[in-house]
């Protein structure tokens, strides 16, 4: 008997992001599709940032999870523009904020600009103030920027919108 896709999704929901373990890869939105054909479980996986060192680990964890259910994994990496930070679930955003990461603002019509990053209302995940400023467009991983909160005087990591 072949596996139910729901069972696969539930198993994938248990896989933490290798770098930010508070959020699962399903919350992160990198699993695009799950299809079951007899013993084979097809998982479409879309990378976040292309230079993210966690991608290979995620892929391996997906394969292990499928094997753990008795299925044969076939992970397809989809390299197009279909992953966006907008795919991070509402629950995922709350988990990020609780862990001290400011979730990414929604994608807007145009590409982000320096003026937006400098003047936009970015909320501090610690105290909730928007009295924050950009310290560095780049941060400890490709997906994050560094900001500083002038209200509670704490630095914090802000997810970039892509």
């Amino acid at each position, binding site marked *: 008997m072949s596996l139910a896709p729901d069972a696969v999704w539930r198993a994938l929901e248990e896989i933490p992001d290798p770098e930010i373990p508070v959020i699962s890869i399903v919350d992160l939105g990198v699993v695009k599709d799950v299809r079951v054909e007899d013993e084979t479980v097809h998982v479409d996986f879309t990378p976040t*940032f*292309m*230079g*993210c*060192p966690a991608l290979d680990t995620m892929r391996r964890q997906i394969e292990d999870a499928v094997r753990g259910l008795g299925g044969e994994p076939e992970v397809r990496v989809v*390299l*197009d*523009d*279909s*992953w*966006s930070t907008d795919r991070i679930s509402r629950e995922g955003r709350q988990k990020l904020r609780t862990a001290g990461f400011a979730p990414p603002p929604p994608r807007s019509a145009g*590409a*982000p*600009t*320096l003026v937006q*990053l400098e003047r936009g209302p970015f909320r501090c995940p610690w105290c909730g103030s928007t009295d924050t400023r950009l*310290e*560095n*467009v*780049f*941060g*400890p*991983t*490709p997906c994050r920027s*560094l900001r500083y909160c002038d209200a509670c005087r704490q630095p914090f990591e802000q997810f*970039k919108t*892509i």
Partner: protein
Amino acid sequence: MSDRVDLLLSLADDELLLGWRNSEWTGIAPFLEEDVAFSSIAQNEIGHARALYELAARELGTDADALAFDRTLDEYRSAPLVELRRLEWARTIARHWLYETADAIRLEALKGSDDVELAGIAAKIDREEVYHRIHAEMWIDRLLATDEGRGRLDEALEELWPYALGVLDDELRPELVRRAEERLGRSLPAVEPVPRGRHEAELAELHDEMTMVRRSAPAGARW
């Protein structure tokens, strides 16, 4: 080799070599925030290279690492701009800005390509490059704000401008001229581009360094 593979390799080689050059600032940038920035940009560029090599590798029946590291010097399709080793800040910034400006023009063209796979990957790369451009433009603002900064930028541009023109094909070059002149508020000299396919002496040294692990562990290194 198909035109498509040739295009993919030239894009990937540019990103790999520039990523490598940018990573040379890791640990020694003039200040910590730039150390973080250049390291992160390097990581992104190498990630783009990997995805592009994978696309080419599928057509050639090989893998991304083999394309990145097992080819001879002559087989690289990189633009000489990315091969230069310029550990001097104004030149680093000038190269960064020139490359990102040229790359934006190239990506815009690729996003409209009939090759759906290539258009998709270009769109994804472009989302990340937005942040590189923001960083480069911020530095151009800083350099243009003082006489000393402008002087240093001009000196760097004098050397690098012919190289920047060499990143793009003939039909895209006028757009680079237009954007660069508009941004700088002055005209740039009409010079001969330093074309792709000819390599800078510094590439030999870089090639030697980046292929070292592959050569010393032909069966594959594990760590």
